[in-house]
């Protein structure tokens, strides 16, 4: 195993009656690009706030580069970069003023560490005199990442950096992360977009305070326990309803213009299913086996009762 960068054991955090994190354990290796995939309420932000020493856990231990999040929090703050989910830069300072502010806080200058942020910062440098509040979503995201990196952190915590950002900016953002990873930085990133899982080395799929599985994205897909068909017809609305009535069906979910239909039985006859749909007035029916996506896996794990005790 790689050298460990982040180590979390039996972490629990409650807010009143809500169990935000429920006995979570995992390790992230040095230089790894590790993704936390899950919807709002999964516990991603709470986890990141604990790891960045901004919030205390109820129980459990966490270390970041061997420093304890409680006893050695100051050291962690010096070696980690944090990009919160909510845009937290100063809207009434310019792009350059924001970056310079963060550099100063960490006792450095833009000039001294320019190499570190150059790749990303250059893209917004033409607008360096614009107020941060006047930037587009994609540009704000680049500035926030530059500010999180200006002190040359060893570990980056990026909380939903791509939420609400369009598909093109998202793609560009992940390309930047790949280059940072190549520079040896450990990256923990959270996202509600399931398809972004495939861009990580390993992922934790999270839901309601629990980690449902931790693995490489390829392994998550290999472990999908059902046999899956992609079914198409002219009328997706009635197709979904009809498929749910078909004998032996485990689940039916819409995926774009087709439906993913899961069976426990590995030997489902496509012809019989096609006959059933045609009999129910579906036209231009198409059925083909399909590999599960991370989203199929996520939905299956969500509806599988959690195993108690690990």
């Amino acid at each position, binding site marked *: 195993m790689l050298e460990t960068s982040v180590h979390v054991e039996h972490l629990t955090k409650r807010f009143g009656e809500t169990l935000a994190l429920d006995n979570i354990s995992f390790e992230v290796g040095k230089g790894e690009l590790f993704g936390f995939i899950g919807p709002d309420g999964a516990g991603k932000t709470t986890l990141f706030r604990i790891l960045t020493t901004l919030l205390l856990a109820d129980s459990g231990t966490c270390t970041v580069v061997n420093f304890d999040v409680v006893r050695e929090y100051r050291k962690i703050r010096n070696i980690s970069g944090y990009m919160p989910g909510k845009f937290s830069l100063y809207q009434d300072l310019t792009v350059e003023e924001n970056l310079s502010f963060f550099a100063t806080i960490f006792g450095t200058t833009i000039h001294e560490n320019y190499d570190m942020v150059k790749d990303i910062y250059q893209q917004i440098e033409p607008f360096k005199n614009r107020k941060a509040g006047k930037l*587009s*979503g994609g540009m704000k995201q680049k500035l926030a990442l530059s500010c999180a990196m200006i002190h040359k952190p060893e570990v980056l915590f990026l909380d939903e950096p791509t939420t609400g950002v369009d*598909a093109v900016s998202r793609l560009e953002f992940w390309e930047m992360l790949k280059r940072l990873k190549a520079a040896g930085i450990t990256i923990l990133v959270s996202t509600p977009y399931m398809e972004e899982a495939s861009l990580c080395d390993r992922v934790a799929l999270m839901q309601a305070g629990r980690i449902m599985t931790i693995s490489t994205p390829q392994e998550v897909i290999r472990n999908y326990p059902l046999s899956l068909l992609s079914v198409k017809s002219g009328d997706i609305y009635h197709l979904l309803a009809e498929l749910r009535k078909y004998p032996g069906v485990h689940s039916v979910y*819409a995926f774009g213009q087709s439906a993913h239909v899961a069976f426990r039985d590995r030997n489902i006859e496509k012809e019989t299913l096609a006959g059933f749909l045609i009999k129910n007035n579906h036209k231009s029916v198409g059925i083909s086996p399909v590999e599960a996506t991370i989203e199929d896996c996520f939905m299956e794990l*969500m*509806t599988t009762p959690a195993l108690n005790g690990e």
Partner: protein
Amino acid sequence: MQETAENIIIVKDLVKKFGSFVANDHLTFEVKKGEIFGFLGANGAGKTTAIKILCGLSYPTSGELSVAGFDIYTRREKVKQNIGYMSQKFSLYDDLTVYENIRFYGGIYGLPKKVIDSRANDLMQRLGFESSRNKLIRDIPLGWKQKLAFSVAILHNPKIVFLDEPTGGVDPITRRQFWDMIYEASHDGITVFVTTHYMDEAEYCDRVSIMVEGRIAALDTPDHLKKQFDAPSMNEVFIKLARA
């Protein structure tokens, strides 16, 4: 099926300028009654500007627009009465209960109390919310909030409902249940005008327009767009267009 051919939104040469910046650059399109119309575009492409104008919240610089059969310059109040609106950011009051939110929105749209109560009961039963009737919005899960927000947005049976990134942040199962509700509304004849960053959701739409830098760069059914741009998914269509 003659009704479905009726255009419920007609936009001709819509231009909106902020100073020298052209946010909407001669937009022309129509939306048919009962259609699910996807309105996509990169951040800053001009979607929000156009939606505000269509909802009667902002005047265009020039162009001809009719929404739900009413002229957007002279009959803005009629437009507002005939549309519903839901966004991810703002929809329900956190410190009001489920029932109070329904009553509040019903009141704003001028529904009589009797009608509000019967629709509220019907709605809570359909969503399985009966036991949460008196819970504060802040205490119910996000997925419930979004389903409730959608139901409230169509409480007054509008002709069109505008959904601005309605599914952000929810889990994939709730997201699909939300789309089941959209299909149902569309089957009931409500026109759905929706923006999203989830490209698989673009494929659930009858037709999709993609805005790039203030203009409509493409508008067609998802199938035709995929063929036209020789792409296997709407995600790739979007990336090809927005990067061009």
